[in-house]
């Protein structure tokens, strides 16, 4: 059974259709990049899965359970976590408090302490700045905090929306290194929105190409970079 299944999904904002007739499944432990031009519906897709945007039609399943129609808190409780666009860290809370918000849904108190140790090991800067206001962190540190915060809910599936946005290339490298490390360590299923096909190819994984609210191509990220499918998606042409 697929870990995550999207079937005939549609998302609309008033009369505007952001996503139409979209279907795909993700296997457990897979890493899937979602790419495409602005307005392709990438963020809407992630928001719909996480429950922060209502679906107009279709079904979203995780482990065979239907997620669509549930509120974001119920979806988080089932083991799906989101690193949203723009990071959305709680700037007025300390780093440690940011990490603690998502642990309220867990009953495994001992494992929470272990997980905190895990993310502190992966992102030592967060341990160093644990008492600092999260708003005082740099952009890259905030991205790391957003990832760590999502991990603290002990997710099985994690959605990451444009982790490279606004970060220096070197910092992006580090963010992806850690993300892949943590994925391997935790057996996570990852869905990542990433604009750069070159970046996706270097990190490796499956890639979905979106345009106009639909998936226009589905394949290995390395092939995408070679076949210029992105150019087709951005400038039209038969994809």
């Amino acid at each position, binding site marked *: 059974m697929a870990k995550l299944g999207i079937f005939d999904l549609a998302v609309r904002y008033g009369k505007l259709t952001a996503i139409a007739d979209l279907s795909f499944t993700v296997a457990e432990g897979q890493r899937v990049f979602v790419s495409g031009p602005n307005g392709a519906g990438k963020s809407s897709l992630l928001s719909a899965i996480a429950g922060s945007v209502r679906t107009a039609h279709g079904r979203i399943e995780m482990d065979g359970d239907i997620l669509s129609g549930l509120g974001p*808190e119920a*979806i988080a409780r089932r083991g799906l*976590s989101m690193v949203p666009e723009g990071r959305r860290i709680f*700037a007025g809370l300390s780093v440690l408090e940011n990490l603690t918000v998502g642990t309220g849904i867990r009953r495994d108190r001992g494992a929470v302490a272990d997980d905190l140790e895990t993310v502190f090991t992966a992102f030592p800067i967060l341990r160093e700045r644990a008492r600092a206001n999260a708003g005082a962190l740099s952009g890259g540190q905030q991205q790391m905090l957003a990832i760590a*915060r999502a991990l603290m809910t002990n997710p099985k599936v994690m959605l990451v929306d444009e982790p490279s946005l606004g970060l220096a290339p070197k910092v992006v490298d580090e963010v992806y290194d850690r993300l892949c490390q943590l994925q391997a360590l935790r057996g996570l299923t990852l869905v990542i929105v990433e604009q750069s096909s070159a970046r996706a190819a270097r990190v490796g994984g499956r890639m979905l190409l979106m345009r106009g609210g639909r998936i226009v191509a589905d394949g290995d990220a390395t092939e995408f970079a070679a076949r210029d499918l992105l150019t087709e998606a951005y400038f039209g042409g038969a994809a």
Partner: protein
Amino acid sequence: MSLQLLFDALALGGIYAIAALGIALIFGVMRLVNFAHGQFIACAVFALIVPSTDALAVLGLGALPAPVLVPLILLIGAGLAVAAEALVFRPMRNASPVALMVGSFALGVALQNLLLVLYGGRPKAVSLWAELGQPVQVGSASVPLLQLIVIAAVAVILAGLALMLRKSRLGLEMRAAAEDFTMARMLGVRSNRVISGAFALSGALAAVVALVLVAQTGVADVRMGGQIMLVAFIATVVGGMGSLSGAVAAGLGIGAASALLQAGLPADARPFRDAFLYGGVILVLLFRPQGLFAPVGAKPRV
């Protein structure tokens, strides 16, 4: 400045701060300006006396000894607010902030009319803790015992609330939700729990204001929440909508300024005290339209 004046300023400012907090707590988590807060206060006042339209008030719950009465009235305030949220605001959860605000006006009018039906429209004399009116000598000043109790109670409540927000799980979730509600939900924070919690705290704070008002004035009046609600609302705006510490600071500031003006203005100008006071408010807002302490969460996001 005389000691007497200091106590006046602290007591008045403290009550404004508590009332402003009641509004800021709810605004913080759901961007709702709850204009029914004044009626929450009025309801808590009338909970003290037996329902009747007679001119003479008969103490019901108000006759209970203070150690029983105070927690009971706080519970009633909290319960009323939680019930109002469940019955009125929860069905409107996805409505616009403006619709929510209009809803709160409607709730306020409904509550006020309920009180009118049950208790009649005339103000009633209520003698609650009359013995607290006796003056106590503090240094050079002679201060009513009640005023000292009010100041101490406000300090305890503010400290307790700050501790609760800093240290408890609900407090953490409320602060996170105040900054970014959807993000908090995506981390598993239950919106109903956070919103009910905010309403419960707000209702309990309304009950505190009610007790102090009755003890100070000795009157139960259906309209008595309105005036303080106005001041409290202004304090939350001056403090920066959604900032709890801002609401407290501005509430204290407005109360203190009010007491200072009362004492400092020439006798001829004293009737216009509030004009001076709100003139000051306008000045503050001219220079800081976002309020003195605009919270992080109120900033526009990219």
